[in-house]
């Protein structure tokens, strides 16, 4: 962004006026106030629900030392900036904004209030008082990709994608690589739903896959509709996404990837309390407890379960990285040489399939 007079006015002036107007940003007495901005309703059973579980874990951990406030269903864009500002005004000293679309609003508010700390989920813009955090969901995908590769009888694995963004492409690649490792005949069928949450559409997507011979379905959308579709079809396995989706145990849901934000939230709030908080770009995975593998049910043979758990533990101990060469890109060109590991930077901008996946990423 080019800096010139107008932009300076836009950002600088706001901070100055708010400060000089002497707005009584509520003084900090007693508990530390921590704010959460949610993109969906808490009852979405997925993304927002899991962030709120993290908030509840914070409340339980800190008791009276911390007070949490939150706002649900905040649209990304115009309303987000106001919602974040109001949280600052009501005395929040640390604010978690939990969706990619809050990136620019968070940056704007962070510029205005240099002594309030902000944490933005899944974004990439940082500032001295603005950290970003994300989870390495692809690590979990490697584990369930392994299970999927072993469990499929038709050798067709389905992946319901939300939007063609790096996070989802990482997930598709990671699950495919690991499914193929244990089952060289595996094929991957990808459907883009263009939504994070639309039960009817997700059910239709699952059905379309099942009708075309897919018998293991991975989903990157948040509703349980694909689970129900799989159950109805019988002999189709699924994995919980975002939340455990334990209502569909032991089949069709045979395991899950759980977003577990509690440990990170507790750690960062502790840092504020200790006065050690610093801006950072954090990307935690299985090792940090941010990505959990839900119970692998008895529908999975013991040796497959052991294999998956071994992979999980290897990733947890950082002995193994899911994107380790040799790996080729979809067009056959070399991506990672033998033993080479993908850098975080590469993964954050990932926009291609690995070799073996058919189809194109829509652009």
């Amino acid at each position, binding site marked *: 962004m080019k800096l010139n007079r107008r932009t300076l006015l836009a950002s600088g002036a706001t901070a100055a006026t708010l400060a000089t107007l002497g707005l009584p940003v509520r003084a900090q007495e007693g508990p530390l106030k921590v704010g959460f901005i949610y993109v969906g309703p808490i*009852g*979405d059973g997925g993304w927002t*629900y899991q962030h709120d579980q993290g908030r509840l874990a914070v409340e339980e951990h800190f008791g009276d030392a911390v007070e949490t406030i939150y706002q649900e269903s905040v649209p990304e864009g115009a309303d987000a900036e106001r919602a974040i500002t109001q949280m600052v005004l009501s005395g929040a000293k640390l604010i978690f904004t939990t969706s990619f679309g809050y990136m620019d609003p968070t940056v704007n508010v962070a510029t205005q209030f240099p002594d309030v700390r902000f944490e933005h989920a899944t974004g990439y813009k940082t500032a001295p008082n603005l950290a970003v955090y994300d989870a390495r969901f692809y690590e979990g995908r490697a584990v369930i990709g392994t299970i999927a590769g072993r469990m499929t009888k038709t050798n067709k694995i389905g992946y319901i994608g939300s939007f063609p963004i790096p996070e989802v492409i990482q997930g598709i690649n990671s699950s495919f690589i690991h499914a193929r490792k244990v089952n060289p005949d595996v094929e991957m069928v990808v459907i883009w739903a*263009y939504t994070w949450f*639309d*039960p009817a559409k997700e*059910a239709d997507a699952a*059905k379309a896959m099942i009708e075309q011979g897919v018998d293991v379905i991975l989903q990157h959308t948040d509703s349980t509709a694909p689970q129900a579709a799989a159950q109805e079809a019988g002999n189709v396995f699924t994995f919980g996404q975002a939340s455990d989706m334990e209502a569909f145990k032991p089949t069709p849901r045979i395991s899950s990837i759980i977003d577990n934000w509690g440990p990170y939230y507790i750690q960062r709030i502790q840092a504020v309390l200790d006065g050690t908080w610093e801006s950072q770009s954090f990307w935690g995975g299985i090792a940090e407890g941010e990505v959990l593998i839900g119970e692998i049910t008895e529908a999975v043979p013991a040796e497959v379960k052991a294999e998956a758990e071994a992979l999980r533990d290897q990733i947890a101990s950082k002995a193994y990285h899911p994107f380790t060469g040799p790996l080729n890109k979809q067009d056959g060109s070399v991506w990672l040489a033998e033993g080479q590991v993908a850098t975080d930077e590469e993964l954050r901008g990932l926009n291609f399939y690995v070799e073996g996946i058919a189809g194109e990423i829509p652009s």
Partner: protein
Amino acid sequence: MDLSGISPILLLASLMVASTPILLAALGELVVERAGILNLGVEGMMITGAITGFATAVATGSPVLGFLGAAAGGAALSVLFAVLVLWLKSNQVATGLALTLFGLGLASLVGQSYNGIRAPEMADITIPVLSELPVLGPILFQHDWVVYLGLALVAAVWWFLRTQAGLTLRAVGENHEAAHALGYKVLRLRFFAILFGGACAGLGGAYLSLVRVPQWTEGVTAGAGWIALAIVVFASWRPLRLLLGAWLFGGISVLQLNLQAANVPVPVEVLSMAPYVITILVLVLISSGRGRAALAAPGSLGQPFHASR
């Protein structure tokens, strides 16, 4: 690209299921609009039905009772609309929009204690003999009973509109002043039409929360109520065409996903907007073509009625 993977039979069978919620909601709205009332609150009634149905089914363990609860919930919400529009003479468009807002809020408030619970299961009813038929069997006769109920209701409404009572309803919708002058009870008829509309929308919502998902999650209807409104127009207020419309609107989505699964690159947005463009074309055709009076929108649609004598 592998189109051979797409089985037309299975495609049509899933179409039957995918179109059921929008079909039910649209059918209710069709009757309402035939009576001359435009209720834009379908989404609100659907989601209310989705939660009341889910809560009833969980409490009683019976999906059938659940659907009854859903119909009751949708109808109860529509009473609010009816009272406002019929007796308090409020504007239908604004009231319908307010009803959607109210219904969405109500449903998520009621639903807060139902997160993560599963609904009691509902079995498919495979109709003996018929389900064995090649092609038609899997398409038509291997579904759950709500799919059949939807089809039966379409037939019932088709038949009803031809009965004396149905003709009266249509007369009220075409010209409420004249109907009133003839001594028909305009408001009472409209009240029952609105109630029926609410009940149907409730059933449609419950089909999502009890069969398709089947769990309560906020926003479970995800705009299905708005699609139902479009289908009514597409169908030019005819029950049998409504079926066609529901299949078209549901089918585009199913087809799009199937093509993707077969690795055919599809312009998703272009396909998704297609049914609406087609609906507008249908509207133009029926408004400009011959037999216009017989095909166009009910004459009194959306107008307030005040019996002045």
